[in-house]
């Protein structure tokens, strides 16, 4: 292995210009993939409040022969399906955040507000810097309370504690019971500036809706098979009677967040297809620089013929040589990844400072680095297989004589 690595590095240094071009291509490719991975991790990874194993219900659709209505799930659908679900520790129903404008001490303040039940604070784990959440009892009694994030606290009350202080929103005066750290706006289940009990809504009409502006999340009990819960959810959905004669079918699905989002866009209800599609996209993106590297490696067969002949003469099998050349390519990819990491850090820092999404902090955490390592290895293998195979198939006598038939 030591000798193989030594040769790999020597080969890279032998033709510096081509190596530089290859390294740039590898580093650029991996940098883009790492940025995308870091963003996906920030949006879907187990970070922040929703860091536990949950299934979510985002969308619902009712359809008939001539009519179709789809959108976020309705409270009525979620209230009839989530409670008492086997294998689920807790479930919560919460609305999508809505931008609200209010005035406080003569200042205009715009804040994203989310209506939730009391269980919301038990399913998701927020980092409270002051006070605590409102309770299921608060929600049942429509208590005029709110939890705000640090940004909202600052905008409403300036520095200092906000506990017990009040502000007006949608014609109601709300008392702050807790302050949480800012949640990035890309965390679609938990982000908001202000959280208030769902029951503070002006009307109860939302309680009947099958399609509306709510989402649901189920915290899975340890050892629970998520597929079983998904299946039970689908079964429960199928038993809901449709009172509107225009509609014949109701559909909604419970999936892990990433699958729920991706499958609603790409492959409805087929998680394996989503994951396969993403890998295919990554591989295709890696394709061009990989082809460049394949070409470069193939051209290097000429200069390495003697080495191939010698190694075969002294007992190397074609398989051993193929492994050696593949390893060399992976080393090149790893060198490229060493360049890609600082480049990725810079790009992420620029994105974080750009303010294109509130409270985001894209980082190269261990999970992203792990994916990066996997992508690097995939790149090294994809671009190295063909040259390794071609080199390893050379006839030893021909290789020693510089013939390549």
């Amino acid at each position: 292995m030591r000798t193989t690595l030594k040769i790999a590095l020597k080969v890279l240094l032998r033709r510096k210009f081509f190596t530089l071009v290859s390294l740039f291509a590898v580093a650029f490719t991996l940098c883009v993939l790492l940025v995308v991975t870091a963003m996906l991790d920030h949006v879907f990874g187990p970070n922040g409040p929703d860091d536990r194993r949950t299934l979510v219900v985002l969308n619902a659709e009712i359809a008939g022969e001539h009519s179709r209505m789809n959108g976020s799930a309705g409270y009525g659908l979620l209230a009839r399906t989530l409670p008492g679900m086997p294998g689920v520790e807790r479930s919560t129903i919460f609305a999508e955040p809505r931008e609200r404008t209010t005035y406080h001490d003569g200042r205009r303040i715009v804040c994203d507000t989310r209506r939730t039940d009391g269980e919301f604070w038990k399913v998701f784990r927020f980092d409270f810097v002051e006070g605590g959440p409102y309770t299921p009892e608060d929600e049942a009694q429509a208590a005029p309370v709110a939890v705000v994030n640090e940004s909202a606290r600052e905008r409403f009350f300036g520095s200092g504690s906000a506990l017990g202080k009040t502000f007006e929103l949608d014609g109601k005066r709300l008392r702050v019971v807790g302050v949480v750290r800012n949640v990035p706006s890309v965390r679609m289940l938990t982000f908001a500036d202000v959280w208030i009990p769902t029951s503070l809504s002006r009307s109860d009409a939302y309680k009947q809706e099958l399609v509306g502006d709510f989402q649901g999340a189920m915290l899975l009990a340890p050892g629970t098979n998520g597929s079983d819960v998904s299946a039970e959810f689908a079964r429960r959905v199928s038993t809901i009677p449709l009172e509107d004669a225009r509609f014949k079918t109701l559909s909604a699905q419970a999936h892990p967040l990433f699958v729920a989002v991706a499958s609603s866009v790409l492959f409805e209800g087929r998680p394996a297809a989503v994951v396969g599609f993403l890998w295919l996209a990554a591989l295709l993106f890696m394709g061009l620089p990989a082809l460049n590297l394949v070409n470069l490696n193939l051209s290097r067969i000429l200069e390495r013929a003697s080495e191939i002949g010698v190694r075969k003469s002294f007992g190397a099998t074609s398989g051993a040589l193929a492994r050696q050349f593949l390893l060399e390519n992976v080393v090149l990819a790893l060198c490229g990844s060493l360049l890609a990491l600082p480049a990725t850090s810079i790009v992420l820092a620029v994105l974080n400072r750009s303010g294109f999404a509130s409270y985001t902090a894209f980082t190269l955490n261990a999970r992203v680095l792990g994916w990066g390592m996997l992508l690097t290895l995939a790149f090294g293998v994809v671009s190295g297989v063909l040259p390794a195979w071609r080199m390893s198939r050379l006839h030893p006598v021909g290789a020693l004589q510089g013939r390549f038939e």
Partner: protein
Amino acid sequence: MVRLEDVSKVYRTDRIETTALDAISVTIEPGAFVSVMGPSGCGKSTLLNVMGLLDAPTGGTVSIDGAPIRGYRDREVASLRNAKVGFVFQSFHLIGDLTVADNVEIPLLYRRMAGGERRQRVAAALDRVGLTARRHHFPTQLSGGQQQRVAIARAIVGEPRLLLADEPTGNLDSQMGEEIMAVLHELNRQGTTIVMVTHDPRLAETTHRTIRLFDGRQVQ
């Protein structure tokens, strides 16, 4: 040690058929030092390649240690080459990116062997060819004779019983050539069987026996 029975080797292309070896039958006894002579293109190197299992014969049988080689499957012939045969080439074929020690170590990389034992064997092989002091040098820092001695160390580091040398002095001046021949004779005295291709009748005279080829046929 090696036995060739009615071995032939024919190279075919779309238009031309070239007979490199024609019905060669040779036995190389253990401990022998045999030279192979003949004009250019008469099949000397091909004979060596067939003996060393680098090339499969078109017809006939090659046996090593009494066992005929059949099928020439990659893994099996690679293993046999590694265990039983060492090669010395006219143009050395050292890997320029590796040090002397790393070059010598190559045959051992394809065996299950601990790093410590590999290093010991490399040191012993370099000691036998008198290049211990040059172990960390690169091939380009050595003279032609020294490079060929490195190639010999590489050929013997795995302690093969058969050493195949294809014009080992062909690229060297006479003094360096004599040095290399001295090393080969010493190896032979220590029990290594050697088959050497050469154009030089004086070198052939120093071996136990000479096989002469002409147009792929054995003439002596």
